[in-house]
Structures are given as structure tokens and as C-alpha cells.
């Protein structure tokens, strides 16, 4: 999994409680992402980071916040969990570089193993 770990791997929590998921990478990649995966929706971007303390919203950011105080760690927080946030959460990392004679920048994202979150 390209040096990416996620913790916890499984969590069951109750509606209204705060939850924090952690993504840790050992690749020193600049970019980190949080996705959720639900049946029928595919992978949807929640938030992403383009450097320490630099973050931005994705497609489904409502109800989520993120923080990145170190290159290697990206935290996803559900301030007050709801049943609609029951999902599998994936972290991804990427780096950007431009090939000398190529079409532009490369952006392969490499994914962690996922966290299955159940909100009762």
C-alpha cells in the first residue's frame, strides 16, 4: 500500500459523537486526500491537502474537517457523526512532477487500506 497506513481500520460509534481518522504515510508525498466509498457512488473526495497546513474542500466536505500539521499525517474529523457518514474511508497520497518531454504533470494517487466506519 505504498507506505500508507490508516487507523483505526474499523470503528463503530454513536450518532453525535466526534470521530477522528488518521492517515500516515512514509513516502514524503506532498499531496494527501480523503475519500469515502459508498455503493452506487464510487469514490468521492472529501478533502485534500497540498502541503502542511494547506487544505481544501472536495465534493462531499459537509460535516468533515481535516488537519495536516506534519507532512506524514493527515487527520479527518467528523465533528458530530451521523448515520449518513457510515462508509468506508480511504486515504490517498500523490506527488506532482513534470516529465521533460511528456504531456504534463503526473498524478497517480496511491491508496491506503481503508477504515470502515459505522455510525449507529
Amino acid at each position, binding site marked *: 500500500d505504498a507506505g500508507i497506513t490508516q487507523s483505526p481500520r474499523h470503528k463503530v460509534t454513536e450518532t453525535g459523537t466526534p470521530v477522528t481518522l488518521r492517515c500516515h504515510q512514509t513516502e514524503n508525498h506532498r499531496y494527501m486526500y480523503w475519500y469515502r466509498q459508498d455503493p452506487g457512488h*464510487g469514490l468521492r473526495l472529501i478533502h485534500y491537502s497540498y502541503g502542511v497546513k494547506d487544505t481544501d474542500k472536495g465534493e462531499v466536505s459537509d460535516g468533515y474537517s481535516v488537519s495536516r500539521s506534519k507532512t506524514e499525517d493527515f487527520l479527518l474529523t467528523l465533528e458530530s457523526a451521523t448515520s449518513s457518514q457510515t462508509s468506508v474511508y480511504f486515504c*490517498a497520497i500523490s506527488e506532482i512532477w513534470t516529465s521533460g518531454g511528456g504531456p504534463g504533470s503526473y498524478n497517480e494517487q496511491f491508496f491506503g487500506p481503508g477504515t470502515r466506519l459505522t455510525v449507529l
Partner: protein
Amino acid sequence: EDQVTQSPEALRLQEGESSSLNCSYTVSGLRGLFWYRQDPGKGPEFLFTLYSAGEEKEKERLKATLTKKESFLHITAPKPEDSATYLCAVQTGGGNKLTFGTGTQLKVEL
């Protein structure tokens, strides 16, 4: 808004029976198209990146191709271990974000 549609949703093949998965896209300014494989309970595993129409990439029994409107993932003489969900994603504009399709679930039987 960028849209990515994968078909079929599910595909059952006999071992050795070649086929193709389709990823059609409607985007403004494609910068890259990505294929991933995902096994149950695991994160997506990167397979290929394609950048321009006419480009092809190969890896073992898999070959990915790209046109201006769609990409195909051709599977030649598949084996049961090729069973997985195959995801397609596009990168557009100046951002580093990907838009994913919902995947094709492939099952290869003996």
C-alpha cells in the same frame, strides 16, 4: 461538471474468455485517465495512466487504451485471480483531484 461512466456494472467471464471494460467520460480538458483495481476489503491499486488519445499501456493480461471520449480496459485470457472491481478516474483542469466512476465488478470463473 465532469462525469465518468463505467460499463458494464458487472461482468462474468470464463477463464480464458477475453473481454473489454468501458469507461466513457465527459470532461473539460482531460489531463489524465487512470485505471485502478480494487479487491474486496482493500484500497484501490494503481494500474495505468493514459494521457492522450491513441495511447496504450499494457501489464500482463491487461491493456488500456484511450480515445477522445472513452477508455477501454482489455483483458486477454483472464484467470480467476483477475477477479476484482476495476475503477476508472479522470483528472481535469489545473487541480490534482480525480473524479471516479462507480466501477466494473469482474468475476472470472474456472
